[in-house]
């Protein structure tokens, strides 16, 4: 269970990006966070694994308070939080296998990491997961040789290799074409079910959010202003979340979808 209480983040001395935000995610649900650019979605996600340092508030994952951790303890906590990125964030010049195994870096010894002597069970698990998402044949291919959808699959497998207790996905489909992005969203949903894993997804595409997630959280100006089942996201809620922003025309998507 992830429980965020009274979370505040402000950069420098400026106005806070996240304003006293509360959010609880229980069980193995797939939750999407929608909202226009600058609403604080990405900052929220990065506060959870402390890629961004929260200003104040509390984030508790399965009983561990994350905001006060330092050094070794922080790294141990990060191992339990998988993250998938918009730009895939793969190491282009390494093979797919090395990229996938880099999800295990928090677990294996430095010597094993440098010599690429990965534990047998890690290699087996990597092949299983790669086969599950359909990239097993690329194990020895360099990451920059793959297509966008394949690269994001590598990103997903890397995160899953961590044996995470929660998976964060920051705009995982924003760099992909529509068909591939549907595939990745479906994959995330299915994996969440198979691995009993809560997944938190930042997403621009409201249609995909409604189709693939169990719960939608709407953010605006650093606050959560909508939190309900996808079916409850009506025209009026969309208006509140996106009004006055370039994303207001997403209402069109909504009408299409409903």
């Amino acid at each position, binding site marked *: 269970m992830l429980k965020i209480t009274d979370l505040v983040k402000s950069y420098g001395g400026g106005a806070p990006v996240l304003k006293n935000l509360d959010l609880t995610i229980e069980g193995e649900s797939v939750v999407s966070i929608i909202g226009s650019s600058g609403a604080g979605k990405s900052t929220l996600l990065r506060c959870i694994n402390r890629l961004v340092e929260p200003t104040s508030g509390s984030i508790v994952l399965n009983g561990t308070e994350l905001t006060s951790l330092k050094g070794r303890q922080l790294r141990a906590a990060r191992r339990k939080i998988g*993250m998938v990125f918009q730009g895939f964030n793969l190491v282009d*010049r390494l093979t797919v296998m090395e990229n996938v195994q*880099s999800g295990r870096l928090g677990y294996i010894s430095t010597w094993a990491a440098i010599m690429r002597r990965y534990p047998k069970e890690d290699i087996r698990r990597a092949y299983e997961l790669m086969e599950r998402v359909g990239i097993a044949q690329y194990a020895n291919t360099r990451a920059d040789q793959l297509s966008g959808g394949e690269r994001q699959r590598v990103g997903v497998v890397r995160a899953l290799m961590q044996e995470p207790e929660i998976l964060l996905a920051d705009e995982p489909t924003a760099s992909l074409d529509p068909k591939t992005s549907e595939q990745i969203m479906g994959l995330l949903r299915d994996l969440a079910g198979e691995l009993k894993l809560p997944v938190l997804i930042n997403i621009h595409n409201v249609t995909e959010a409604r189709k693939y997630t169990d719960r939608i959280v709407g953010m605006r100006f650093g606050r959560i202003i909508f939190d309900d089942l996808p079916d409850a996201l009506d025209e009026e809620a969309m208006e509140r979340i996106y009004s006055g922003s370039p994303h207001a025309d997403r209402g069109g998507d909504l009408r299409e979808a409903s």
Partner: protein
Amino acid sequence: MTGISEQFGREDWSRHTPKEKARRFGIFAVCALAVFWALGSIEIIWAWVWDSPSQMADLFGRMYPPDTSNLGSILRVLWETVNIATFATALAVIVSLPVAYIAAQNTTPNRGTLWLGRLILVSSRSVNTIIWALLFVAIFGPGIVAGVVAIMFRSIGFIGKLLGEAIEEIDTRPVEALEATGASRFKVIAYAIVPQVMPTFWAVAILRWDINLRESTVLGLVGAGGIGIILQGAIDTFNWPEAATVLLAILALVVLGEIVSAFLRRRIL
């Protein structure tokens, strides 16, 4: 502006506004003045200048035909020259790795090490190989050891600077991703930074080897080993035919070096 163009019609067009024109003219004038100052005050005996084409022709005339009677020892020393360049490059590469690491803003442990790294790079780069060689000939005595150390000292700054810049310019997103997996600092470096700077590393090492091949041809002039000693000897004794052979040998060596480095670059990158 539109007012003016309406007033004067649309037949006049000039690429630059009057202010731009003035600035361009100013820059041009400064350049011209600098050239005239240099030409006017440089201490050149102009008679020598007018005489120089015939002097050059005379010199090259005396070089022909090249004298290859000493070719064996020239080639042997040429091989020594290659060894100086290669060995010094290898040493410099090894030493410059930690220097680059502490001289890059995003990897250096703290401010103190950053400035230490930059100091090493600047002092290494600012002093020319020949001047380094003068110093090391004084310490190690004449011979190739002084040459190797001199080239190494100069190369550290070059390789370290370019490598440090490559480290500063890496894509930080994989670094972020690996930090998010809970990997330690060292493993993040090994997996996210090293693979990204590897191409630059090889490219810079090969480039510097190519440069060092050239530099090592002149070390001999200050007694630090290599082909330069023979060249100096031939010139000092006005043995121009042999000097010509040495020059041709150097040309062949450098061209060969360029071919080899182009080949390596293609293979590795």
